[in-house]
C-alpha cells in the first residue's frame, strides 16, 4: 500500500523544468531509493514533498490525503521528517536540545513528560548518547548527520526522507550508516532516500527510481536498475 504518492509532480525554476510530470509512489515499510546525475531534480523533489518549495502543478498525497499546499511544520507533524544534503542542525544548542526540539514541536502529539527520555533513547539509537551534553557544532560530520537523523526521528515520523546521508563519509562510516538505515526501517518507518553511493543504495533499497533532467526514466528493483540500458547510458554515456 502506498504511503506517499505523487502524480504529475512539476516544478519550474524560471524556464527550466527541475521536476517534470513525475509520477511516483513509496510503499509502506519499504526503503525507496532516488538516484540520478547532478541536477536531475532529486533534492527538488524532496523539497516539494516536505514543502520547502511549492509545487507548480501536480499533487502529492500522504496516506491517501493531499498534503501539497501545507506548510513545512504541518508536513512534519503529519508524519514526514527529512534531513538535508548539507547538514542542518542547531550548532550552538546542545546535542540533546537538538533532538528535544524535534520531539517538542514535530511529533503529532508531543508529550512533554516523555521528551527527555525519548531524546536519550534516540541518541542511544544513533550512537550519540555519550555526546548528548556538548554543543552540536563540536560533532564530526558523521555525527552531525546522525544527530540530524535523531532529531528527525524525534518527530515520530512514519516516513523519513534522507538526502545523501552517506555523502562525504568514509567507507566504514558508510557501512554503519547503511546499517542505521535498515534499523530505522525495522522500527516500522518507511524510508525514501537520495544517495550517490551506489554500493549503499543497491545494498539497502527495495526499489529505486531514477531521475534525469527532471524526468523519471526508470523505476524498479536494484537489479533491474543496475541492468537497465537507459540508466547505464545516463550515467556512463553511450
Amino acid at each position: 500500500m502506498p504511503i506517499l504518492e505523487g502524480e504529475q509532480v512539476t516544478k519550474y525554476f524560471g524556464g527550466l523544468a527541475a521536476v517534470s510530470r513525475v509520477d511516483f509512489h513509496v510503499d509502506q515499510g519499504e526503503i525507496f531509493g532516488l538516484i540520478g546525475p547532478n541536477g536531475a531534480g532529486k533534492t527538488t523533489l524532496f523539497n516539494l514533498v516536505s514543502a520547502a518549495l511549492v509545487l507548480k502543478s501536480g499533487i502529492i498525497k500522504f496516506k491517501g490525503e493531499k498534503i501539497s499546499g501545507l506548510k513545512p511544520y504541518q508536513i512534519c507533524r503529519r508524519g514526514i521528517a527529512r534531513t538535508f544534503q548539507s547538514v542542518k542542525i542547531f550548532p550552538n544548542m546542545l546535542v540533546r536540545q537538538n533532538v528535544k526540539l524535534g520531539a517538542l514541536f514535530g511529533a503529532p502529539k508531543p508529550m512533554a513528560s516523555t521528551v527527555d527520555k525519548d531524546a536519550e533513547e534516540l541518541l542511544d539509537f544513533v550512537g550519540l548518547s555519550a555526546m548528548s551534553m556538548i554543543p552540536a557544532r563540536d560533532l564530526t560530520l558523521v555525527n552531525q548527520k546522525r544527530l540530524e537523523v535523531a532529531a528527525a526521528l524525534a518527530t515520530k515520523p512514519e516516513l523519513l526522507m534522507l538526502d545523501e546521508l552517506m555523502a562525504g563519509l568514509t567507507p566504514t562510516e558508510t557501512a554503519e550508516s547503511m546499517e542505521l538505515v535498515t534499523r530505522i526501517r525495522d522500527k516500522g518507518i518507511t524510508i525514501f532516500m537520495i544517495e550517490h553511493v551506489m554500493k549503499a543504495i543497491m545494498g539497502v533499497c527495495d526499489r529505486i527510481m531514477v531521475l534525469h533532467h527532471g524526468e523519471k526514466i526508470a523505476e524498479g528493483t536494484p537489479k533491474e536498475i543496475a541492468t537497465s540500458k537507459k540508466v547505464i547510458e545516463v550515467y556512463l554515456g553511450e
Partner: protein
Amino acid sequence: MDSISNIFKGSRLGWLISIILLALLATFPIYGSAYTIILLTAIIMYIILTVSWTLFSGPTGYISLAAAAFFGVGIYTMAILGGELPLIAAVAAGGLISFLIALGVGAITLRLKGIYFAIFTFGLVELIKHLLLFWEINVTGTRGRFVVLEDNNTIFWIMLGIFAVLMLTYYFIRRSKFGLALQSIGENEEAAAHLGVNVTLVKVITFGISAFFMGAAGAIIATRWTYIDPYVAFNVLFSFLPVIMAIFGGMGQIYGPVIGAAIFAYTEEILLTKFPYYYMLTFGIILIAVIIYLPDGLVGLIQRLRRRSLGGQHANT
C-alpha cells in the same frame, strides 16, 4: 510541572537578589533626590527598550530597527488617550496598540531576511512618522500635541513596573519550549521549520511582545515630555540605541542587555553633564573600543574573567 520547579530551584539566589534590588529601587523615591529619580527613570526606560529589543532580535538574529516606531506609537497613544483614560490603562493601551501593529507588520515582513528586514523596520519608523505628519497637516490642522503631566515618582514606579513584568516575561520565554523554538529559528530557520516549529507564528508573536513593552515605555515617558510632535516621538535614535546598548552589554545572558543599557545610559548622562564639549567624541571612542575589544560585550568580559579565575577552559566550548 517538574521542569517548572527545576527552574526555580536552580536560581533561587538569583531570584532573591532580583527581588531585593527591585524592592530597593521601588522605595527609592522616599529618600532619593528628584534628579536621581528622573535619571533612574531614563535609565530604566533604556533598559526596557534594550531588553525588549533583545527579546526578539537576540535569539532570532533578525535585526529590528523598529524600536522607535513602537516607542513612538506608545508616545502618541498617551498624547491622545492621556486625559481620557486612567494612567495605567493609557500605558497598557500604548503597549497594546504597538503589539497589534507589530503583529500586522510582522506577518507581512518577517519573511524578509537579514539586511532587508533591518531596512524595512527602519522604514517603518519613517512611514509612521510621515503618516502622522500628513494627518496633522491635512486633517487636524495641528502640529504636535500636549501630553498630560504626571509627577516624577508615579512615572518612576510605572516604569519600574513595566521593567519587572518585562524581565519576568523575558525569563520565562528564555526558559520555555517557546524560547527553544526562538533560538532554533536564529540558528537554522529552515531546519526548525522542518522539525515542526511554526516559525512564522513564533517570530510574529515574539515581535509583538517586544513591541508591547516598547510601546508601554513610550506611553509613560511621554507624560514627562509635556509636548510632542512626530519628530520628537519617532526619533530614529531610539531605534539605534537599543541595538548599540545590547551589543555593548552582550546578548549571551539575560543580565547582559540590562547592564549594557544601564551603564551606557549612565555614562551618556555623566559625559553629557560633565564634559558637554567632548561628550560625543568620548562616547564614540568608548563604543569603538568596546566593539573591537569586547565582541561579546560586557557579559563576554565577565565570563572570560570568571573562566580565568576558575582555571582553564573546557575542550568543548
